[in-house]
């Protein structure tokens, strides 16, 4: 069931077009990653979805709300850099957030202790936020976004400020939350998206370059790939250099790869037969010849570096 539909959403700042007529839908219960390099327009898109930024043009329609209506009651938001009142304790802030969302004092109290436990800062609940570490603030930020059980949880780069352990823990938490609510989160790390998400929207320069279910995208853009590695002796290296300068027709693109090369090929059978023949004939001391497929990483790199 569709939860959110975005059509022709555009935002220009002065002359620069930060978001350029994007459109997508988010279905209930899905976990969606908004992926893109720095400056792609992820934060701008998210700010428009949360109502913090008025779109230059376009439409944001939430299920159950008239287009453009105030749908703040059903979203929970964690900004890229969460700003919290340093003079409050973690518990006070969480209860404050809950009460602003319309929870009764008792409900807010119950939700608060549950969430503090869940995000792992229960022991710091009664300490001033000013004394929290970055990771603790991030967790409290996540807790305050969840306090009113939002239908859509929007997170702007939830893990990029965390150390590897913190990152692991927040990702685990998101994996649990996935079962309970719809999630949209932005990241510039493909790995995070692949690990967790059902859908991805890859943005570049204000547009959605590729979007859809991860599995579909993977299949759709899948290409066979040959990975070749050789020993670092003079003769083998010379052969590879020469061969790469004029690769055969079945090679679509090549990239150097440590002691060898990655070849995106069109016809995997022809490639396998022909390359094996050449390797034997020239007596190349190869250490590895692997046949596989392009990953999302390859697609992501292709999309974001395309000019």
């Amino acid at each position, binding site marked *: 069931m569709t939860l959110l539909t975005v059509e022709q959403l555009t935002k220009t700042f002065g002359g620069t077009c930060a978001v350029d007529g994007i459109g997508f839908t988010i279905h209930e219960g899905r976990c969606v990653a908004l992926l893109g390099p720095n400056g792609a327009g992820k934060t701008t898109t998210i700010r428009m979805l949360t109502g*913090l930024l008025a779109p230059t043009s376009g439409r944001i329609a939430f299920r159950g709300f008239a287009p453009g209506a105030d749908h703040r009651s059903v979203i929970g938001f964690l900004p890229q850099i969460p*700003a919290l009142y340093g*003079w409050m304790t973690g518990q006070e802030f969480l209860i404050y957030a809950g009460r*602003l969302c319309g929870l009764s004092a008792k409900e807010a109290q119950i939700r608060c202790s549950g969430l503090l436990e869940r995000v792992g800062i229960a022991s710091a609940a009664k300490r001033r936020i000013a004394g929290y570490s970055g990771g603790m603030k991030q967790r409290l930020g996540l807790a305050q976004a969840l306090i009113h059980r939002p239908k859509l949880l929007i997170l702007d780069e939830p893990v990029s400020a965390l150390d590897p352990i913190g990152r692991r823990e927040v990702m685990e938490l998101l994996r649990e939350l996935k079962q309970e609510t719809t999630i949209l989160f932005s990241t510039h790390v493909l790995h995070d998206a692949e690990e967790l998400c059902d859908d991805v929207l890859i943005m570049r320069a204000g547009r959605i370059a590729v979007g859809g279910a991860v599995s579909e995208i993977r299949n759709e853009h899948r290409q066979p790939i040959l990975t070749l590695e050789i020993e670092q002796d003079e003769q083998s290296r010379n052969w590879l250099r020469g061969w790469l300068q004029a690769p055969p027709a079945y090679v679509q693109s090549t990239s150097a790869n440590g002691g060898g090369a990655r070849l995106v090929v069109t016809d995997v059978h022809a490639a396998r037969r022909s390359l094996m023949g050449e390797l034997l004939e020239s007596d190349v001391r190869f250490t590895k010849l692997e046949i596989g497929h392009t990953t999302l990483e390859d697609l992501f790199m292709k999309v974001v570096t395309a000019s």
Partner: protein
Amino acid sequence: MTQWMVLYRKEWLELIRSSKLIWMPVVFILLGAMQPIMTYMMPDIIANAGNMPEGTIIEIPTPHASEVLAQTLQQFGTLGLLIIALISMGTVSGERMSGTSAMILVKPVAYTSFVTAKWAAIVTITAISFVLGYGAGWYYTAALFDTVAWQDAAGSLLLFGLWLSFIGTLTILFSSLLRSAAAAAFTALGTAALLSIATSLLPKALAWSPGKLAGLASAQLTSGTASGMWPVIGITFVCIIAALAISVWSLRKYPSIEAV
């Protein structure tokens, strides 16, 4: 209404945690008590200055109690205004700059409540400080000079309190229109000064200006009546409501700084 109370209570807690609720009333009490005490001791101070030729007789007429209290009001009209501007200058811009306004306003919080809760907190702390400070002034005036009728003191308290609240409101307005807190304080104080000067220069044209409030409060003390106060009070209330409405509009348009 519950949500408004939650917002108001948060502002209140912040005033307590930042000690503003302690130092602002203390400063106001000092301001209020200082004027009558200084006036009372002035002849002694001058006599002890020591550089008078021998035999000089100093004659300073003892001022009337209501004049002393009116001078006290003038203290609140300068230093008091400055303190109110300092207290309220970051009300909106501070939250915008730090990003907390973005955290709060993505929740289903009414923009009007967000602004008016802050405004109510500023008005409350101003009222507490001013009542205590003016009370101290009244007490020392009564102890050292003469008692001023409580009706006149109360009337001038209300009139002057409205003037102070008006300045607080102006500061909140500029705090939501400008990025810099210092600029907001400066603009609000500048506006207050301009209003007072313009009102005294053009008494006819600006007969209903809020800039008259301070003068009316003094008149209430010294002559027992503040003629023509109702239109001024009415206009001041209208100005306060308009200023709050503009603040709300500005916040709705730019809930956070990145959006400006």
